[in-house]
Structures are given as structure tokens and as C-alpha cells.
């Protein structure tokens, strides 16, 4: 399974639609301080069901909605979509948050539960807590974590 595309709209500072084509190899994202790079990492964690506001640098669930600026009003919904490819077939996962508080997950366009998303990706090395997503400032956490915490990372990999 390989990630091939990531789309965001209305999530945090991404007030307008953006789409990233992800090719194999090294995809580098660059830009000035505060331009929105780490918000992309938050978008990926949120898509896979991250509930802890502290891991998403938020204090309430509505913080995901683009809060508007001089030229644009606040977003009505936050939407993140990731498209994977496996054996030539495409698999898409989406999450939508609306300003009325409703959360929706979609698998290949059809409404699904978070549980379905987690089951589909189980064992593929993809998920909000997987070792493969390292947020800003987190790379030295491993060395600071306890032997018990390290054990659970290893178990996941077994």
C-alpha cells in the first residue's frame, strides 16, 4: 500500500483546497515559519482519528475549522482526504467536521465508522500513533521514553 495523494480544505490554515501528489521517494515540504507545514501533519493525524487535542495543538474540537482572515470568512467544514494505492486499486479515506459539531468518516466515498478505518489500515503501518509520523520536536522523545513505552512500540511492530 502506498500513499499517492493528500487533499485538505477548511482544516486549520488551509482555507482553500490544496492537493499534494505524493510520489515514491523523498517529498520535501518547505516554507517560512507559520506558513502551515505542521498543520499538514495535524491533518494526517486528525484524518486517522486522533482525538487528543494536545497532539493536534488545539484546545477545542472546533479549532480544526479555518478561522477566517481579512479576505475570507470562517470555514463551514474541515475536510481531509488521503488516497492510497494497493495492487492497482485506489483506496480513499476522508474525514469531515462540520460547524454543527458532526464528524463523518468516509471509506472509498461511503460513510464509515472510525473502527472500519482502523481495521482497514491495521497492520499496514498506517495510523495516528504509528512510529512513522514524527511531529515537530518529537524526534528525541524516544530517548526520553521509558522501557515500557519502548516495549509497546516494538510489540506493535511484531
Amino acid at each position: 500500500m502506498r500513499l499517492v495523494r493528500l487533499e485538505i480544505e477548511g482544516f486549520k490554515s488551509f482555507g482553500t483546497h490544496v492537493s499534494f501528489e505524493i510520489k515514491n521517494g523523498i517529498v520535501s515540504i518547505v516554507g517560512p515559519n507559520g506558513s502551515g507545514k505542521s498543520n499538514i501533519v495535524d491533518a494526517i493525524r486528525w484524518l486517522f482519528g486522533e482525538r487528543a487535542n494536545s497532539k493536534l495543538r488545539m484546545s477545542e474540537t472546533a479549532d480544526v475549522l479555518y478561522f477566517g482572515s481579512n479576505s475570507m470568512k470562517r470555514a463551514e467544514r474541515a475536510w481531509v482526504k488521503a488516497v492510497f494505492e494497493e495492487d492497482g486499486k485506489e483506496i480513499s479515506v476522508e474525514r469531515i467536521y462540520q460547524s454543527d459539531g458532526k464528524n463523518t468518516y468516509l471509506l472509498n466515498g461511503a460513510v464509515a465508522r472510525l473502527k472500519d478505518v482502523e481495521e482497514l489500515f491495521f497492520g499496514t503501518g498506517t495510523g495516528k500513533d504509528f512510529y512513522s509520523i514524527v511531529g515537530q520536536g518529537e524526534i528525541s522523545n524516544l530517548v526520553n521514553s521509558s522501557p515500557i513505552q519502548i516495549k509497546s512500540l516494538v510489540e506493535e511492530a511484531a
Partner: protein
Amino acid sequence: ARKRLISTMELLNENFSRMISVLFSEGTGMMSFTEGFDILDAPVEINVKLPGKKIQKLYTMSGGEKSLVGIAFIFSLLMINPSSFYVLDEVDAALDDFSTQRFINLLEEYSKVATFIVITHNKFIMERADTLYGITMMDGVSTIIPVELSEFSDSKVE
């Protein structure tokens, strides 16, 4: 389960010690179950000995050394339990030029078998990217801008 855990640990230890010797040029690393526990309950210990130094306690390590050990761990797991994509958000922030170069070498080697999304301000890393996305904030909204690598030579990422 017990057998699998033991063989995973052996493989992880092998990978980890190779990564440490690559990232610290002559360092030695070891991961093992804490003595005196049943494997299924045993915590995992990390030991690193750096060139010219005695076996050191992880908490005395420097900022850059801790980042390198974290990177070594990620790449050790990559070979055992590959993920559909990796996100590394400024993992190079604490690294000096030498360490950054070794990290780049590792990225390049494994970019043939994995997809890395690397967020960085470091020009040497940007130059090695297969795909480069620029992000900028225009009037409070994050947008994608095309980036020419030549712009970096005078390092003005706007």
C-alpha cells in the same frame, strides 16, 4: 507470540546497531529485553556507546545525539514493519552539518523502498528531494507555491 517477539527483537537489535554505527560513525547500539523478566512482560532497554566515550546514560546525551538515536530507531523499525508513508517534521533541527549529511544518506538509501514526507528548513535536505512543495501564508490562508531549487541558493524561501 513469544517466539515472534524474540525474533522481532533480534532483528530490531541488528538493525538498530547498524543504524547507530552509520549515524554516529563507529558508535555501537543495542536494544534488548530487560534481564529477569518473562519476554512477554519485559520492558526494552536501549544502550548506546559513542566513539571515544564510555557507555552512556541516555539522559546525558546532547540534543543532537538524542535526535540521531530517534532517527536510528525509526529506520530500524522501517525494515521490520514498513509503513505506507513516513512524515518527518523538522527532525534535523538539532543536527550539525555532519549529522545532517548522514541523515540525508540514510533517507536517500531508503527512499527507494519507502515514501518520506520531510518538512525542513535545511537547504541540503531540500536539494535531495524528488518532489518539492513550497507552502506560504497569503492573507491568513496556507497555499502551495511552486518552488525553484535555484531560489534556495540565496536561501530566500518566501
